[in-house]
């Protein structure tokens, strides 16, 4: 087979049962991969600025949530009823820990936690509270808005779908 024929065969393949089977296999694999393993996400909102920008595209890697527990400083996706709409937040406290904000500083069990990813000024104050079992405390990186306007808090580990791929 000449290179020209090969090229033609590649772009315009003959519709044989074997070819159709291969197409069906690829389509099924792509569907499963992009529905359950590597979910494409479109980031909307500025809650994770400047780490993740409004309007950017990413993928949610679900296997990480399946095989490991979330750690402090991990960025995770938190689901609502399903995978169509999710929240992108950072884990700042783990189960059993006491969390509070004092003049914008994050304190876990009374110790100040360094957060290099928080670039904008923050003056939040939140009284201490304990993270329940099988839960984590998640907050966005952008804390420049008033605390009432930011969507953050404790969530069940079961709601964590995965982590952004990059």
């Amino acid at each position, binding site marked *: 087979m000449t290179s020209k024929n090969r090229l033609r065969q590649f772009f315009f393949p003959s519709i044989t049962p074997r070819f159709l089977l291969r197409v069906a296999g690829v389509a099924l694999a792509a569907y499963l991969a992009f529905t359950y393993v590597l979910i494409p996400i479109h980031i909307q909102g500025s809650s994770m600025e400047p780490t993740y920008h409004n309007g950017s595209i990413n993928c949610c890697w679900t296997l990480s949530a399946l095989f490991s527990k979330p750690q402090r400083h991990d960025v995770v996706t938190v689901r609502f*009823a399903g995978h*169509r709409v999710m929240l992108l937040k950072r884990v700042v406290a783990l189960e059993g820990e006491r969390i509070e904000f004092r003049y914008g500083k994050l304190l876990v069990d009374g110790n100040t936690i360094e957060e290099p990813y928080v670039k904008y000024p923050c003056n939040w104050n*939140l009284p201490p509270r304990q993270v329940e079992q099988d839960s984590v405390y998640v907050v966005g990186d952008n804390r420049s808005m008033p605390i009432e306007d930011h969507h953050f808090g404790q969530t069940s580990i079961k709601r964590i779908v995965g982590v952004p791929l990059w």
Partner: protein
Amino acid sequence: MVKKESQEQTRGSIQTSGHGYLSRPTSGQVGQRGRTSLRSGLSPLALVKKHPVIAVLVFILSVLAVLTLFPSEEKKVKKQFEILSRVVSKEPGENVITTARKAHEIAPLFDENCELIIPEDSVPAYVGPGEIASYALRGRAQFSDLSLKFVDLSIMFPERRTAKVVLTAKLSGKAVNGDRLDETREVQCTLKKIKRKWFFAAFEVVEVLKK
């Protein structure tokens, strides 16, 4: 005699049609075959064999007709959410007639005593269809455009006349004063079936992030 000849010709044409698949028939022969199959009253199986494309089309149309004419309970429940989404949503520059029509459509979707459970409020509230309609109208009046979408619907039927639906509700829009609204909540809804129709009986907002 003339009549007999024509009968023989007809019989001949039946035979021709029998061999039609083997030899390449002329357009005239094709016409004859079609007429004879109808006249001779072939069985559905034979018709499927003869006209597989038409048979497949008829089958697809029949399935679609059955699904449209006799929707499942799940589809009926989903339809209620579609209606609620449509009547609450507002296009920019919506005219008075559309607003009035939508206002008229809101109340009949709800049960006489609809329970509302919101995490911030400790006590559940019971409201009637009229109250809900007036809340919705007041809310809509504050927005120049409003969109309510329900996604990720998971429908269960714990009892014969009760449906439990867990979903994500996405409310977005632009207020008259220019402020943007973008709220997403997980909601658990209960619907009751009364006289072959589903009505919203309870809404509970699930707290995904607890401050």
